[in-house]
């Protein structure tokens, strides 16, 4: 991706990707050092600059690096896919490349471990399932599970690695004394409220200038 570029800025993000140790200041430093060492070996004179801003999904934070961005040929953004694209909108004349593969909205389930918890479906049903999301935690996104592949609390998709989302829902509803709620058949979901309805947009009227 960087072949032929003489000046590169690796731009980190101080929020989500810092939390999950993928694209923060530390990770930017590691990548920058690696690229400089590689360039040295190749005899390349390409300059690798590095910077990290608070986040790349709010326009104001880019002000701190405008000068640096102006000096380089390309920016390698270590933000999530949102940040990479928003950079392109804020700097329409500057090439930007993604430094990460953005996978999911998740939580830090243990030190050094993150797991998916939300799919951004746009019509949250978590309240009906004891705080466990069937869209995300069930591999098949079943709303009236479980399926026949639930064995010993594990999902047939990956019996070693994936807990059956419906086992989680059952256990949680049982603990809350709400098992009877699961006897109600959940109707078809309108998937158009999320990704399947096209790119989303939200306007908060009372926040507009």
């Amino acid at each position, binding site marked *: 991706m960087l072949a032929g570029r003489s000046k590169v800025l690796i731009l980190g993000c101080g929020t989500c990707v810092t939390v999950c140790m993928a694209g923060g200041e*530390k990770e930017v430093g590691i990548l920058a050092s690696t690229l400089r*060492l590689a360039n040295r*070996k190749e005899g390349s004179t390409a300059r690798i600059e590095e910077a990290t801003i608070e986040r790349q999904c709010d326009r104001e934070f880019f002000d701190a690096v405008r000068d640096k961005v102006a000096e380089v040929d390309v920016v390698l953004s270590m933000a999530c896919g949102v940040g990479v694209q928003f950079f392109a909108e804020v700097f329409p004349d500057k090439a930007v490349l993604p430094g990460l593969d953005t996978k999911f909205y998740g939580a830090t389930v243990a030190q050094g471990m993150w797991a998916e918890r939300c799919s951004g479906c746009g019509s949250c049903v978590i309240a009906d399932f004891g705080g466990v999301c069937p869209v995300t935690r069930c591999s098949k996104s079943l709303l009236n599970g479980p399926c026949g592949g639930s064995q010993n609390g594990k999902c047939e998709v990956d019996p070693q690695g994936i807990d059956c989302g419906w086992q989680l829902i059952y256990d949680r509803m049982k603990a809350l004394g709400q098992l009877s709620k699961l006897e109600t058949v959940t109707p078809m979901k309108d998937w158009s409220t999320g990704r399947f309805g096209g790119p989303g947009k939200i306007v908060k009227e009372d926040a507009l200038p």
Partner: protein
Amino acid sequence: MSVRAATARITALLCENSAWKAYGELALDPELRGVDFVKMPCSGRVDAGLLLALLEKGSSAVLVVGCPRDNCTFLRGNYRAEKRVAVARAALRDAGLDENLVRLEFLSSMDSHRLRDAVLDFKGYLDDHSSS
């Protein structure tokens, strides 16, 4: 990154609870010239960024020395060091460089001879893989 034998400079990051104590007896050893010995609070203090930055900024190679396995003063620091050295070595491979420019050893405060052997072995490796 080939290393010129005459100018090879090893940075040795020594855990103060084990390796640094072992180093005490070796401080005046003439065969260990050309090595920068740095005291660390624990081998677990190292991270991949530090190791790569050392190589980037002038060290020819980096040796991390911590407490023996299952004997870290801070319980798991040396295991953390092991994983972080692995990350640095992977980065060197990605950069097309010799991953053996970063090494990790475990030894106790009594193992001065082993520390000396480890450093001399590393120097020998750099000599054998130098560009001239």
